[in-house]
Structures are given as C-alpha cells and as structure tokens.
C-alpha cells in the first residue's frame, strides 16, 4: 500500500488500475479502507493512520516525507513495519485492521491516498525489486531462510520489507509471491495434492506456469477462474477453436496426445503439465515418463474432466490443487444442481416406462453400448438405449435393427468427422437442416416412431463430449420426458455456464447450432 501525498497524478493512474482489475485471493473482501487522524501544533504533526479491511498479505509502501518521519507507535509486530528516513514500509497486515502513528514536520492536511500491492492474487503488479532470474531448488520453500520447512511470519515480513526497501538481499518477485501464497493458503508449509489417478505430490511452490494437453482440463480450469497467464502451452484443438478459447489463441501449440511436441513443452519450462488420466492412459503414461525423464522437476497431473461419473470429484481435486476452493465450490454447486435435478427425477422412472432412444455418433449407424461414455450419459438422462446390450462399446449396428427397434427418440451427434459444423465454431444451420432431411429420408425411417413424432434431434458434441456434458444430458432428458421436465431450461443453463463460468457471451453464439431443431 502506498500512501502518497505529493504524487497525485501517479496515484490516480494506479487507482484506475485497481478499479479495472479487481483482485481475487487475499483481498476478496474488497479494498482496504484507511482513515487518517491528524494532530499537531504547526511545527510537529502526528498522524494516526487506521487501516481496516486489510486482508492478509500485502506490501505497503509509504514514502515522500522530505523532512523525515519517525514511527511513534504501531499495532503491528515490529518485523512488519519499518520507518526509515523518508519512508515507511509495511509488510503484513496480519488481520483485518491495524494502525500506526508517525510524526513528521509537514502538514499533510487530509489528501491522503492509499495504495497497496496484493501478493497473492493474480493481478499483483511487478514488485519493486527483482535481482535476476531466481533458481528454484526443488524440495525447498521460498524465503524459508532458517530452512525448517515452514515459512514463518517473520521470514515473509522480512522478505517483503527488504523488497519494498530495495535492499540488496531482497528476494526475487517470484519467491516473494510464492512465499506469500504458501503463507496465505497453506500456513507457510508444504502441502500435498492429489490428482485423478490418486498420485500424491508434495508441493513446495504454487503452479505458475502450466502446460495443458487436455482441452477438457483447460475448460474446467476456466470454470475455476484460473487466469490464462498461468498457462503457457495448450493443445492444437484449443488453438483451432478460437471461438471457444479466444484468450488462448496466442499460446504455444504443444500438439496433442497423439502427436506431442516434447521440445516445445520443455522449452516452455513449465512447472506443471496437465494430462489425461484414464483416456489414452498408455500413451499418457509414456508422455509423462518422457517429460520427467528430460526434466524430473516437471510435475505431471492427470485428470480427464469429461466423464459425468467423476467430473465433480475431479473438479474438486483440481480446485484443491490450484487453491481455487471457493470458486470450485461455487461452480460445482451450479453443475450439480442440473445433474441432481436430472438424476433425481429420472431415477424414479421404472425400467419398462423409460423412453427408448437410438443414439448415433457422427459415423453412420455407429451407436453406443455398455461400456461407452455415451451410454452412461444416456442412462443418466433416463433413456433406454436400444443398443445397450450390443458389443463392442461403439458398435456399427445393422440398419435393419434400428428400424425394428423403432426407438421413440433419436439423437444424432455432430461436431466431428464429416459433420464438423456448428457448436462454438459457429453457424451450421444450413448443414444441420440438410443432415436432418437426409436422416428423415433414410430407408424406413419415415416409419420409425421417433421420426413420425418429430422426436429426431441433432446435437453438437461441444455440449455432450467434454465438461459441457451436463448441458447435453439436460437436452436429452428434456427430449425423452418433455412433460416431466417442462420447467428445465437447458439453454438457460448453457447461457449461465458460458457467461458466469466461461467468460464468454452466449449471444456471440446465437447463430450456432448446438441442437437442431432448436427448442420450441
């Protein structure tokens, strides 16, 4: 926090910065408030400055007292405040409020402006002192100068004050921010995180530079409010999807699970790499082994983030890993609200009363059966998949068997293969209509119940395949049981997902096909 009395124009600029970029983390409750109580006799003035709503961690910098100052008293521990010649430095608030009194020969009147630097949130500006690139030894905590495995209050305070004071021994900005983070979130101690495979990792630093090879993790990170600044490398599918991932378009392209650009990943010197857990596990094990062979300090975290069976659990683990618990809880309650509604109402439907459904992926007559993710989602939606018992998990079915099953609802998936249109990439209305006509005119389909009753639907994989699956599941549920779910509005949930959790405008996709025909 800078309390500056003479540099008003500069201060005004800094304030704009703070208003435009509201901080998260330590200052979630809002900006600190200060009050100045001046007193004096015309020669010597004393000012008691009371700061409330101070948050937990910040560097405060008070300067420009040309005639010199003296610290009279302070509610802060001595290691947290330093008054030197013309300057006052304050390291930690250490609570909601604090006060201190200084004595100077100048009349400050009452035009005091307060500034502060948040060390934990993403938006903290460049700190004052950064002596070159820091080498980060693994297995040790930053600023833990007595090496006892705990960052103590005094160690952190000392680091902040030396940094504010531009002392020679000041820590690098990175060390300072890491230490502040660890002190704030983990009581200054190393902590343990767990990924989806159950692998535990002891952390000595927060993740600052991650490479993500699974776009579903990236989408989930966005729901958790992770800043794009934390991510340096993304898979090609993200680069190729500027409609959905606009802010990641200029990140390094690290290829895919199939064709991984190892050189690029190593050259980004990430401190963490995020990979699939169960999906393509052999290939991902190999990627993990190769990366850690070339740089053992790279931590690899494995999550799938697409399967409704464990999406909530994975998201909660990911939130813990990234210290995003609050936002994680908020997002998960939104996610689970929709899923619970679907599960609760459909679980009561007896097997013989379930609506039958034929599901077809983008390949002709390629359906899904037991053991496939599609089938699981259909089950959640309360549907009776007519090919549930078929083998293999993604069977090519006999066209005749679709006809003889005469399903009540048909869902055709688009968004890949020959049907690469619509979704977040935009548009697709014309192709969807053509495809719809084509499906209706398939041999015998005019006599299938679903087609006769207008219950043939086209759905885009963008709301069924990845973390957005809950939206697709809601649509299917509504198609299966329009009466029971008349109050459920998948489109509105989709809007909220995009606008509240993904930082996108729903209206930007108003011409894009997610389902066809659209909801009446």
């Amino acid at each position, binding site marked *: 926090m800078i309390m500056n009395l003479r540099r008003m124009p500069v201060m005004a600029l800094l304030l704009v910065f703070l208003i435009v970029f509201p901080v998260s983390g330590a200052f979630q409750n809002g900006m600190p408030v200060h009050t100045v109580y001046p007193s004096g006799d015309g020669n010597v003035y004393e000012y008691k400055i009371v700061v409330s709503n101070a948050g937990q961690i910040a560097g405060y910098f008070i300067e420009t007292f040309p005639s010199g100052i003296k610290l009279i008293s302070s509610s802060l521990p001595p290691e947290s405040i330093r008054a030197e010649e013309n300057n006052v430095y304050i390291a930690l608030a250490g609570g909601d409020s604090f006060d201190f009194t200084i004595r100077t020969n100048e009349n400050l009147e009452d035009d005091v402006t307060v500034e502060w630097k948040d060390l934990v949130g993403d938006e903290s500006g460049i700190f004052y002192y950064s002596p070159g690139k820091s080498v980060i030894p693994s297995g040790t905590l930053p600023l833990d100068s007595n090496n006892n495995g705990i960052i103590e209050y005094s160690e952190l305070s000392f680091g902040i004050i030396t940094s504010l004071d531009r002392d020679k021994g000041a820590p690098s900005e990175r060390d300072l921010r890491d230490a502040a983070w660890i002190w704030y979130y983990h009581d200054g101690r190393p902590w343990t995180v767990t990924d989806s495979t159950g692998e535990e990792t002891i952390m000595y630093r927060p993740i600052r530079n991650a490479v993500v090879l699974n776009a579903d993790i990236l989408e989930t990170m966005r729901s958790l409010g992770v800043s794009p600044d934390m991510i340096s490398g993304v898979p090609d599918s993200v680069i190729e999807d500027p409609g959905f991932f606009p802010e990641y378009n200029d990140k390094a392209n690290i290829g895919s699970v*199939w064709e991984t650009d190892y050189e690029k990943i190593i050259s980004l010197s990430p401190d963490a790499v995020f990979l699939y857990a169960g999906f393509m596990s052999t290939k991902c094990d190999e990627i993990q082994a190769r990366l850690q062979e070339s740089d053992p300090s790279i931590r690899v975290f494995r999550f799938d983030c697409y399967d409704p069976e464990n999406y909530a659990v994975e998201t909660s683990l990911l939130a813990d890993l990234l210290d995003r618990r609050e936002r994680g809880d908020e997002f998960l309650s939104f996610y689970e609200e929709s899923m619970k509604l679907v599960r609760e109402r459909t679980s009561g439907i007896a097997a013989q009363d379930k609506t039958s459904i034929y599901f077809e992926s*983008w*390949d*002709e*007559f*390629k359906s899904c*059966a037991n053991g496939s993710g599609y089938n699981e989602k259909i089950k959640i939606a309360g549907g009776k998949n007519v*090919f549930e018992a*078929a*083998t*293999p998990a993604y*069977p*090519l*079915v*006999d*066209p*005749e*068997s679709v*006809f*003889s*099953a005469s399903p009540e609802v048909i869902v055709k998936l*688009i968004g*890949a*293969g*020959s*049907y*690469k*249109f619509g979704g977040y990439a935009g548009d*697709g209305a*014309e*192709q*969807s209509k*053509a*495809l719809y006509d*084509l499906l209706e005119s398939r*041999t*015998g389909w005019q*006599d299938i119940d679903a087609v006769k009753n207008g219950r043939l639907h086209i759905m885009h994989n963008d709301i069924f395949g990845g973390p957005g699956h809950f939206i697709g599941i809601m649509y299917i549920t509504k198609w299966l049981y329009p009466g029971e779910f008349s109050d459920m509005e998948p489109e509105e949930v989709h809007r909220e997902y995009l606008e509240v959790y993904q930082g996108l405008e729903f209206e930007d996709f108003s011409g894009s096909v997610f389902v066809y025909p659209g909801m009446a």
Partner: protein
Amino acid sequence: MASGLESFRAEYELVRKKKLFFLLGIIIIIVLLTGWGVTVGTSEISVFESYRAIIDGFYGRLASFLSGEDYSSTGQADIILWDFRLHRILFAIAAGFGLAVSGVVMQGILRNPLASPFTLGIASAASCGASVAIVLGAGVVAITGSLLIISNAFIFAMAASFAIYGMARRKGMQSSSMILAGIAVMYLFSAVTSLLQYFGTTDQAAEVVYWMFGSLSRTTWTELGIVTLVLIAVVPWLIWKSWDLNALSEGDEIAKSLGIPVERRMTVFMIVSSLLTAAIIAFTGTIGFIGLVGPHIARMATGSDHRILIIASGLIGAAILLMADITGRVLLYPSTIPVGIMTAFIGVPFFLYLFMKRSD
C-alpha cells in the same frame, strides 16, 4: 487309336461334367446362403414370415407395377425384407461377382497370380478419393450425403487406372510395366490417404478407416441397380472375348500370332475391369481379397479356360462375399462386423484348404 480317342473323349466329358457340377454346386450354395441371409436379423420376424414377406411383397409390387400405382408398404416385415435385407443380399452377390471377375481379367492379361484391382492401386485410389471427401469435404458431406464420397472414390479409381494405362503405354504395354506402374500408383495414393488422415482430426481419420473396412450397410436398390447394369454391360462381353483372354494369358507372342491386337485388347480389358471394380467399391468401400482369391479358387476347380473361369470366379466371389456379409451380421447382432474384415476370415481358410489339398 479309336479307343484312345474314345477314352480321351470320355475323360473330357467327365472333366466337363465335373466343372459343370462345380458351377452348379456353387449356385446351389449361393441360393442356400440367400435363403439363410433373408431370415437373418431381428428376431421379431420368423423365418416363415420372412419368406412370406418376400413373396407377398413381390406379388404386391408386381400388381402395383402392372396397375401403375405406387406400392405402399404392408408392414414391418415387408419393410425389413424389401428395404433392408433383399437388396443387401443381392448387392453382396453382385459385388462379389464383379470383384472376382475383375480380378480374373487382371490376372489373365497381366499373367500374374498376384494381380488384382487392389495390387494395381485402384482400391487405394478409391480410398484416397473417399478420404479427400471425408477430410476436406467436412461439412459438405452433410448436405450431399455420401454422394460426394461415392463420386470421389469412383473418379479417383478411374483416374488411377488411366494413369497406369498412360504410364504403361509409354513404356510399351507389358504386364511387368503395368504392374510396376500400378504398384507405384498404389503407394502414392496410400501416402496421400495417410497424409489426409494425419492432418484430419482423429474422428475423420477413424471415418476413413471405417470406409476402408468396406461395408454393405449403405447399399440401396438404386446402387444395386447401377452395379447390376455395369455387370450386364461388362460380363457378357468378357465371356464373348474370353478366347482373347485365353490367348493373352498364354503370352503376348502367342496372342499376337493368333491375330489379337495385344495392346489394344489389354487396354480395353484393363479399363473394363477397373470400371467394374470402381463402380462397386465406390459404394461399399474397400473389399479386398475377393478379386485375388476368387479367381484362384475357381482356377483350382475349373482350370484356366476363361470361358468357364469368368463365371466360376464370379460365382465364388459372390458366395464368399455373401457368406462374409451374413456372418458379419449374425455374429454380434445387432452390431455388424464390416464385410471387408469378414471376407478374409471366410475366404482365407477356404483358400488355404484348397491350396494345401492341391499340392498333395
């Protein structure tokens, strides 16, 4: 002498009868397979209902046709038999027949037992055409249906055969130069297909793979009609010209001395057999093996006289493909195993059996 001639004639008659019996046997097998195939599928329709639906449907359609009315379907069994099963079975017969005939012609003119429309790169060209449509035409396919894939596969296959013809012609139409040109073309088109798969998305690559498995799921009466027309146009002509094939398969010198315009005839035979293959695999996807093995099996049984070999190969091909398709539908019903995979499973053991038995 007379008795020698008599015994020779008797022996010839016996061989002739054997060959005819073989042909008859295959025809009976095809009829039996057809009889089985039309009853295979959903359990809701019994064997009896299946046959009744065929017969009723036939008379119903005939009556509507004669009276000039539109035929309206009479129920589920009728739709399943007439809209799903019958044309698929007939298509298997026609496609198997055509692929094997195409193979026997290629082997004849190139005098190479390994020659087939596949070793000459025609199938890989068709696959390449299909991948171009699948990968580069993403989004367009939804509008055109599979028409884009079909026409692309056909155009590429024909282009490949003309390319081989062009190259071989410059080098002098010899079987070795044609085979070499064909293999070069095959590798080129395979490389392009791989490149497209590499640049396409995972699911597009998968779709290309599925296309290359070959399948009869997509056939319709119209497609059956087209293939049948091609067969009707091509096969009688081939049988009529089978003496030329006999002569060509004995070698260019002998064919020339018999007054056959070798290069011209080779060209025509090649184009015709390519057309036959292209017209079939454009609809079905790659169904390999039949064009190679159908003729071999037929040759083992009936000898190398093309007058009978063409028919015999065609029938063997039809039987194998039909058998493969029915098995592929039955094994995991309602899932189907693509017929291109099943042909090898059905044909190879049979082929090996004959092969081992003959070498005894």
